[in-house]
């Protein structure tokens, strides 16, 4: 049996500018925009983010001869950090190509993630009392922050394209009871409001269409809550996370069943002190974009291992 596999792995490349890390102020937010590129297999939030990019040549009896390329490039982009504001923009591009018979892949995608945090904040002690000695001039009780995620993918084999843009705003505070502040009992929450645009393909199982393609925009409201129920006894390994997301359709086509809402509840039990190994349980109930806004109730149990930093 003939089987030849040639794999070229392109390790993550990091060029560290000699001026970084010395504590000196930096003048231009984009001066070093392309000085710290990372090359990986993908930047999709999966385990592929830990894998190096690869170019494969395969010659086998069962699959024939084919090649595949999986390359993701992410650069640091622009960032600015001062005593009053912190913002960053990081772009990434990906290219995935495979000439394997009956499994041709030819996808290109572009993503841009941005975040902005506007301070400074007033400080409060563990008992909730103000810590005015730590406050900067014009410090605020609560500070807004903004998150933007965009992604576009072009599939040249299927002749399709998908796109998504999500912009969210929330707030952070150190005052007990307000968003962001964690209580002694380990509870904190964030409310989000925002806008979202989605251009999605239909969801299929074989030839059966489970959810039609959708193209449109939403106003979005999300409540995120997190609880470490055993924090008071210094046991940090149990985490409960709940989110409720409501989307109000602003315009578009392909959504027939009214405004979608999605509730998720997750429980994570970390099995080691570094929180790299976890057992998880998750409930999803409602309609979310991952399944084309089809009504679903799903329970899953996961075992997760985090490798690398």
């Amino acid at each position, binding site marked *: 049996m003939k089987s030849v596999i040639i794999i070229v792995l392109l390790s993550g490349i990091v060029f560290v500018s000699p001026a970084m*890390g010395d*504590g*000196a*102020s*930096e003048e231009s937010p984009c001066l070093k925009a392309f000085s710290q590129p990372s090359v990986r297999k993908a930047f999709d939030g999966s385990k592929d983010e830990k894998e190096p990019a690869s170019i494969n040549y395969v010659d086998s009896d069962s699959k024939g001869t084919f090649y595949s390329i999986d390359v993701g490039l992410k650069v640091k982009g622009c960032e600015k*950090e*001062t*005593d*009053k*504001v*912190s913002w960053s923009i990081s772009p990434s591009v990906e290219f995935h190509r495979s000439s394997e018979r009956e499994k041709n892949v030819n996808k290109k995608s572009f993503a841009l993630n941005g*975040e902005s*945090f506007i*301070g*400074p*904040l007033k*400080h*409060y*002690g*563990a*008992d909730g009392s103000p*810590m005015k*000695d*730590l406050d*900067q001039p014009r410090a605020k009780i609560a*500070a807004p*922050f903004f998150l933007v995620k965009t992604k576009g993918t072009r599939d040249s084999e299927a002749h399709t394209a998908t796109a998504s843009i999500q912009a969210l705003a*929330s707030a*952070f505070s*150190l005052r*007990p009871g307000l968003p*962001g*502040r*964690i*209580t*002694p009992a*380990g509870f*904190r929450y*964030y409310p989000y409001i925002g806008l979202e645009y989605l251009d999605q393909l239909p969801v299929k199982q074989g030839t059966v269409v489970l959810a039609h393609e959708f193209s449109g925009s939403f106003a979005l409201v999300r409540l995120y809550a*997190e609880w*470490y129920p055993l*924090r008071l006894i*210094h046991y*940090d390994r149990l985490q409960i996370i709940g989110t409720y997301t409501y989307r109000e359709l602003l315009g578009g086509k392909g959504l027939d069943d009214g405004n979608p809402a999605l509730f998720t509840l997750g429980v994570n039990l970390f099995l080691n*002190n*570094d*929180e790299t190994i976890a057992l998880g349980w998750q409930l999803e109930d409602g309609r979310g974009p991952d399944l084309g806004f089809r009504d679903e109730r799903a329970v899953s149990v996961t075992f997760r291992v985090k490798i690398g*930093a």
Partner: protein
Amino acid sequence: MIDSATVRKDVLHFLEAFSGKPNADIKDADRLSIELHLDHPAFIFLAMSLRGYIQHLAPGATLKTSEIETDSFTVLKLIELVSQRVGL
């Protein structure tokens, strides 16, 4: 002139504000993200507060969020980093 003991006390107070935990539960923490439950926004605003503190004591000096937002960053390392940035 600032001294090491004052910087240590102030950094512990910053961590108290961001973790909601009293000083006694903070000083020996080995992992800021796990034992003090600092999430991403908390690290961003903690770094912002520390930059304000550092720049007040040593104009021109700073620190980046990425320097402290790592899995293994300890309270001791944070005190050392801030001390170094203010010239101690």
